[in-house]
């Protein structure tokens, strides 16, 4: 006969768990006379930690600056840092905690579309306010999110305009197999049809894929005018290394990437990507006075080896935009802050940006850059003026099929 598992001992373990789960009492009120609690929700562990930790650093820098400057409405910002652990369920769970247990006045964070989609219902249900710092696939406008990165008409479409101006009429599309590249390529295809451009091929690879011989050989064979690259993360390293081995030269067939920023270049190897293009709204080399201060402050705080990138800068702006909106509303209440969002304008590292109230996206300038030998990106083109966000591409005739 088997010994009965000792239920009593297991029950003790169970009780301990429950104690651990339940020990937290309802959190402190989010705002008191001296402090205001905000949430920081990034992946500090797991696969996305690489990217998201840099964004957290930027948010922290902005908070420190504001606190040193007297805080917001006379209150010091007290961040509660949570780890989304590169896992959507954890993101949702942590968001719930920030909003209900910590009563965070606002939350800065998330990176992937998946994590944003995961926390979105939590923010809508609890009427929270999330500041999302990354360029994304558009087709979204929640009252509970402020999108401080670019939407498609501020990154992809200007990049296509630029390629067209340069006389590139045949494009090869390569992307990781997930929402952003698929949506981006739908837009690119529609754009190409409307502008007499030729899509040579549209290839997708699984996330984290490292085997690009087939695709790079295919590119070498087809010799398109340009490659539009929406690959994500590690895959870029393999892609650019193998592209170089396939003999594809940047001056002959430039690759325009929308997910490669200063942070990633070191891992790819500057000599593998030199001369290729990127599309963002900000580069470390962007020449504005606020940017010199930002880069200076960032390297002073985190070390001279660190670089700044578009998502970091957007996250940094988020905190300053929130402060401006709170001061405009003279309240920390989410509804009051939301009402004050429209037209909030600051001088950011990327230039002057302002919030477009109806979409809660930013009006911002689009820039195409070229990777240089030092692993930084030089701006080679920028949109003549800041572009009004249009997440559903309603102002583009050729895009009518994309939004139903």
């Amino acid at each position, binding site marked *: 006969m088997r010994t*009965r598992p000792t239920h*009593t001992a297991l029950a003790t373990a169970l009780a301990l768990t429950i104690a651990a*789960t339940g020990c937290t009492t309802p959190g402190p009120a989010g705002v008191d006379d001296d402090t205001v609690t905000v949430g920081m929700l990034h992946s500090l562990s797991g696969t996305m930690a690489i990217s998201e930790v840099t964004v957290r650093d930027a948010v922290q820098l902005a908070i420190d600056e504001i606190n040193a400057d007297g805080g917001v409405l006379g209150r010091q910002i007290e961040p509660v840092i949570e780890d989304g652990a590169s896992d959507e369920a*954890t993101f949702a769970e942590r968001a719930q905690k920030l909003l209900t247990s910590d009563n965070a006045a606002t939350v800065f964070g998330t990176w992937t579309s998946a994590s944003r989609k995961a926390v979105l219902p939590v923010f809508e249900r609890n009427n929270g306010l999330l500041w999302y710092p990354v360029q994304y696939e558009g087709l979204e406008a929640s009252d509970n999110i402020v999108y401080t990165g670019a939407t498609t008409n501020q990154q992809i479409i200007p990049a296509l305009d630029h390629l067209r101006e340069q006389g590139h009429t045949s494009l090869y599309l390569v992307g990781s197999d997930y*929402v952003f590249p698929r949506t981006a390529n739908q837009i690119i295809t529609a754009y190409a049809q409307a502008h007499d451009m030729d899509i040579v091929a549209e290839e997708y690879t699984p996330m984290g894929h490292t085997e690009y011989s087939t695709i790079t050989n295919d590119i070498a064979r087809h010799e398109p005018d340009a490659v539009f690259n929406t690959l994500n993360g590690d895959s870029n390293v393999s892609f650019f290394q193998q592209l170089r081995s396939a003999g594809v030269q940047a001056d002959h067939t430039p690759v325009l990437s929308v997910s490669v920023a200063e942070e990633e270049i070191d891992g790819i190897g500057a000599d593998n990507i030199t001369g290729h293009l990127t599309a963002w709204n900000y580069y470390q080399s962007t020449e504005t006075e606020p940017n010199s201060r930002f880069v200076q402050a960032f390297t002073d705080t985190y070390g001279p080896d660190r670089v700044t990138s578009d998502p970091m800068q957007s996250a940094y702006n988020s905190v300053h935009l929130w402060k401006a909106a709170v001061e405009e509303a003279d309240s920390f209440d989410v509804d009051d802050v939301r009402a004050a969002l429209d037209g909030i304008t600051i001088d950011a590292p990327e230039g002057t940006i302002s919030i477009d109230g109806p979409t809660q996206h930013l009006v911002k300038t689009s820039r195409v850059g070229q990777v240089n030998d030092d692993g930084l990106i030089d701006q080679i083109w920028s949109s003549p003026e800041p572009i009004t966000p249009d997440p559903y591409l309603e102002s583009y005739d050729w895009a009518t099929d994309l939004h139903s």
Partner: protein
Amino acid sequence: MTHTHPTLTRWRGPITFITLLAAALLLLPLLLEPFRLNLLAQYLCYSIVALGIALAWGRGGMLTLGHGVYFGLGAYAMAMHLTLERAAHDPLNTTGLPQFMQVTGATELPLLWQPFTSATFAITTAVLAPAALATLLGWSVFRQRVKGAYFAILNQALAAAFVLLLIGQQHLTGGTNGLTDFPTFAGHDLYTPTAQTTLYTLTVLTLATLYLAFRHLTRSRYGKLLTAIRDAEDRVRYLGHDPTWPKTLAYALSATAAGIAGALFVPIMGIISPTLIGVIPSIMMVLAVAIGGRYSLAGAATGALLINAAQTTFAETFSGTWTYLQGALFVIVIALAPQGLAGLTTTLKNHLTPTPPETTTHPQPHKAHT
């Protein structure tokens, strides 16, 4: 144990069980705030998965490194229904299509999705789809006597392939974003405290029912046969038993438990996505069972509860250290306490109250299954 205090021993198990169940059902909802109760319900979903893994691995010797797949099947079936319900009741949604499909340009509901408008169909699928897939895979590989490490690797490859499929079939599955935002079920708001308590209660009852069912199984002749197959599969054949169906059954039941857990997880958590069910989450499910005690159903369930609670508690404060700790836990538990917590508690008890040796023989670290 029957030698000393037959009555006492006979009833100690049931009494503890009923006490725990009553405490879980009556006391905890009063003590815990809704957010915490919701967390607890999530962990208990993983306890249900753990029961299944303990049956397949602990009893049947089939190390399943791909249970995320079955959890995912259950979860996606449920999530598809909830997504459709939301689309149907959203006044701003004129097409009745899930939001992610509008993004990918669909104009009508794909065939695969149509039956999921029915809650009954969704729930049935959540239970039967994992069972069917596991039966198919199990039968085809067990019949060919693929076992041990080979089986474990195939499971892992299945998890990897399943995630690729979900991500690749973005127009059907929502891709990496998964499915999210489920405000109602059958017209009831899922986020009222009452709904949260109901979901929690349902989870506890499911866990209790499956525990009793699996416990009965392990004590039946079938359970003995399964243990025999685990320890010496070839020997069993010469007694006239075909090991294929007992193994397939255990594997399929184990998958079903995971599917049910997935279906419960979705309304509780409000999201399902590929990252929750891939290779690493699948291994973590096994880790929880190893820590709780693979040979003990109660131990495995407790292990899952503890590991997930610990994840929440520790991961946020020391994320790097937590990874080291998880790795170390694997090594320590497998190396020093292969019977997990349940084994430790038994050992502890035996030290306190000496019992005749033959009644305390727990499975030793058993021999090769290959």
